[in-house]
């Protein structure tokens, strides 16, 4: 071209600048390379740790409680179920001032009807900067919707189903109850907790740096618990429960228990203890009211136990039913002090001894049976060990083996002392007689998740404990108890009732002797005796009125319940029963 394009000197400085630009460029490339190496390090080798760390500061895992299974009675009536409710919680921002953090609470106090104590404890939690605070748990969906509508910062509601018992206190002691987290606390609820519970799910809450949740995601779906059908019949349960509660009040008893069963299957139709409680408020229920007297309390059975002595004597042919015994003495000499009768008797037949509940007569029979055979029969009848019913904390009772007996023991045990039994064990014993000698385990679970209860390893199979003939003889005697003996208050017009009364003194552990003023009244029996539709045990502990005999206070409860339940079960009076009544009338007419 034509000459130098640049002014003098410019080319040399431009050249220097170019060289020096390259030097700076190289420095920049080195710098950038460092950055790339750092990126590879962070994004490939540091990746897992960073991810964990972010999850740690960002995520909170919350357990989702599954819906517990429903509990129904034998006809499908719901006894326990879940209903949808929501719980309100507060996740305060750690960024705000204390006043700002307390502000959302003020709007909730009237809406949720929070009392002062609750408010104070929530405020204390806010001051302590707790990240998660329950405001109120298990409120109805409408109120929860109103809370959500307020759009208060940090206030959230969460699904939390509540266990409800729509029948209130009905079968409370069978069902038990749950705590606030829907965990079983007693009864079927605790024994079948895992079956009912299902599998908990999991929800991840994503929280910002101020611990405020902004999103949540269900990672594991909760699995609903399985349903349980009980052998209980809600109607029978209602009748039994009402009558025992009435009787406990009327007789000023400390407590009462009644169990109704179908003797042919061993299924429990009703089981009630009084006083009772509302399982909807299990946590607030009175401790005494929560006691499951019917199967976890041991009592001295007293005269009801004479069935066992009689069975042992008949089964082993130690007496004949027509045989007579001299019951004229006021008392019988027994080691450690004489034993009396409740009233003077004359010469009594074997049947009359049981029907009239003569201690003197029964002790003579017991001495004929002997320790070994009596003990064997007691064990055969299931005393001294748990029946195996599907309920928690069942008592086994106490029966000592003969080698531990004192010289008084045989006589005592013959008339139902020195042994302790549960009302449920008494029912099991009377069921053996009703069932013509066959022992069945009492059952309370009909089916689990729609499948009938499967036989389990620990189940004892039905056993013929006494012969059918012995059982028939015993039934004749037990009918006489109700017709003309101590149990006439249990008689039902048009039905043949078999039963046995019991009245025992309560052992006082302080005085170390049997109290003269405190008693346990009981009655066990079944009806109709020829083809039993129901069997029942009634126990009243410490009735404080002047009437305290089993025949006076427990037998009427049996009658009231049986009368209504038989009608409910469509068991109507039959001509056969009329005959028995006729023979009874004839006998009463005689002098």
């Amino acid at each position, binding site marked *: 071209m034509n000459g130098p394009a640049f002014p003098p000197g410019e080319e040399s400085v431009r050249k220097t600048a170019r060289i020096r630009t390259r030097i700076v460029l190289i420095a920049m490339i080195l710098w950038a390379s460092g950055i790339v190496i750092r990126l590879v390090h962070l994004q490939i080798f540091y990746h897992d740790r960073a991810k964990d760390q972010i999850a740690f500061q960002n995520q909170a895992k919350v357990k989702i409680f599954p819906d517990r299974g429903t509990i129904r009675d034998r006809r499908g009536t719901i006894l326990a179920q879940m209903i949808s409710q929501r719980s309100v919680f507060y996740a305060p921002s750690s960024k705000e001032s204390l006043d700002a953090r307390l502000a959302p609470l003020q709007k909730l106090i009237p809406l949720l009807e929070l009392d002062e104590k609750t408010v104070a404890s929530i405020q204390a939690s806010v001051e302590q900067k707790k990240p998660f605070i329950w405001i109120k748990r298990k409120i109805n969906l409408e109120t929860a919707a109103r809370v959500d509508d307020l759009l208060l910062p940090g206030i959230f509601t969460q699904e939390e189903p509540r266990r409800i018992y729509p029948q209130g206190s009905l079968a409370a002691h069978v069902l038990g109850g749950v705590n606030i987290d829907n965990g079983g606390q007693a009864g079927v609820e605790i024994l079948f907790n895992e079956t009912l519970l299902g599998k908990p799910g999991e929800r991840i809450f994503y929280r*910002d740096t101020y611990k405020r949740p902004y999103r949540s995601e269900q990672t594991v779906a909760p699995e609903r618990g399985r349903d349980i059908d009980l052998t209980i019949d809600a109607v029978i349960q209602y009748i039994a429960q009402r009558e025992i509660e009435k009787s406990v009040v009327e007789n000023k008893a400390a407590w009462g228990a009644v169990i109704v069963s179908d003797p042919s299957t061993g299924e429990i139709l009703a089981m009630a203890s009084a006083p009772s409680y509302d399982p909807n408020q299990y946590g607030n229920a009175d401790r005494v009211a929560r006691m499951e007297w019917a199967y976890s309390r041991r009592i001295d059975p007293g005269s009801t136990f004479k069935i066992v002595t009689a069975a042992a004597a008949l089964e082993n042919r130690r007496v004949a039913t027509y045989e007579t015994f001299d019951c004229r003495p006021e008392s019988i000499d027994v080691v450690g002090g004489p034993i009396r009768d409740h009233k003077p008797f004359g010469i009594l037949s074997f049947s009359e001894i049981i029907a009239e509940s003569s201690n003197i007569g029964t002790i003579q029979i017991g001495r004929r049976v002997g320790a070994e055979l009596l003990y064997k029969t007691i064990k055969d009848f299931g005393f001294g060990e748990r029946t195996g019913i599907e309920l928690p904390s069942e008592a086994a009772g106490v029966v000592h083996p003969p080698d531990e007996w004192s010289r008084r023991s045989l006589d005592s045990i013959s008339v139902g002392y020195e042994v302790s039994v549960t009302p449920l064990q008494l029912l099991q014993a009377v069921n053996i007689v009703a069932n013509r000698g066959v022992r069945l385990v009492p059952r309370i679970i009909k089916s689990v998740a729609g499948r009938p209860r499967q036989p389990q390893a620990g189940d004892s199979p039905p056993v013929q404990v006494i012969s059918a003939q012995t059982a028939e003889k015993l039934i004749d005697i037990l009918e006489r108890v109700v017709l003309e003996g101590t149990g006439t208050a249990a008689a039902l017009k048009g039905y043949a009732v078999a039963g046995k009364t019991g009245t025992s003194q309560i052992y006082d552990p302080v005085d170390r002797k049997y109290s003269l003023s405190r008693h346990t009244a009981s009655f066990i029996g079944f009806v109709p005796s020829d083809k039993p539709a129901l069997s029942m045990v009634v126990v009243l502990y410490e009735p404080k009125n002047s009437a305290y005999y089993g025949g006076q206070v427990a037998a009427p409860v049996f009658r009231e319940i049986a009368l209504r339940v038989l009608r409910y079960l469509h068991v109507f009076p039959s001509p056969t029963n009329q005959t028995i009544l006729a023979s009874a009338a004839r006998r009463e007419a005689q002098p």
Partner: protein
Amino acid sequence: MEVFPRGAFDKTMLYTALILLAIGLVMVMSASDVYAEQTYHKKLYFFVQQLIGAAVVAVLITFLLSIRRPFYKSPAVVFGLLGLTFGLLLLALIMPPIAKTNRWIVFAGIRFQPSELAKISLVLFLAWYLDHKREKIREFPVLLIPTGVILLFTFLIIREPDFGTAVLILVLCIIILFLGGLRLKHIAFMGLVLVPPLVIYLFSAQYRVNRILAFFSPGASVENLNFQVAQSKLAVGAGGVFGVSFGESVQKMFFLPCSHTDIIFAIIGEEFGLFGTLLLITLFAILVWRGILISMRAPDFFSQIAAAGLTLFLGFQALLNITVVLGLAPAKGVPLPLVSFGRSSLFCVLLAIGLLLHISQRRGDGRRPA
């Protein structure tokens, strides 16, 4: 002789800048939506603000490209800009502080950060000065005027206080003087004069000392000093190779303060992984490469130095920003050019790119004399 083919500016640079701008807009939207929702109840608040800013500057750039004369070389422009910047910096110190600092001036509702403009003014001033003194460039007294100007500006910016920007500007100016042919021993002398006051100043404020300490004791306390650095490292690390996908950043949930401004690179790293970060670095590399090419091909010494200075200003700022985000340098409030939210920065960066594009269309005849 200058040739001036109309529309012959560097298209690669323009497209690269536009891509970066687009990425920036999208990432500002993603990183700021939660914060915007909480603060302004508008998810797109920052996105819209940035978009408006970009649109205004785009018009300005079109205007710059259409000017035929080399306006940037005229003393009126160079000294006018320098004077304006000086005035605005003084004004910022006088105006009531915003967020406890005097970095901004507010005029008619528009906030502006004059320290951003200072970068361009100083580059143009130094280019003009070096061009005029190129015969005497190796003489020591020549050094005195630029040293004074640089010191003055650095001092004003430090007073704001904005230590990061001041250091960046200082280093950038020294490099420009180096490119301009200054003797190395003079530069070393300048360094000796300028660095001690900075170091003294550095240790005069506790928060700066803490930041330095935090940098040199990693993991000491994630909750306190190192929080931001630790959180941005976590964000980048959590991204892995492909990222957690767009909009899914966890760290923007206030774990990372300034996630849409200075730390936006961390959110890019989290949402798009190594793929995204390397893409971004590649785009900046292209930008620098085109800038240097423009400088090399510039029609004259002034333009060459101005183009190199503007390019280095973009490149250094990007490198410094990313270095801080990756926890390789103490925390400094320097935005990522074209990407971070901030209209002052966006305005000045686009102005710089506009100037570079303008220089790119004023090539020399493409032949250097032997």
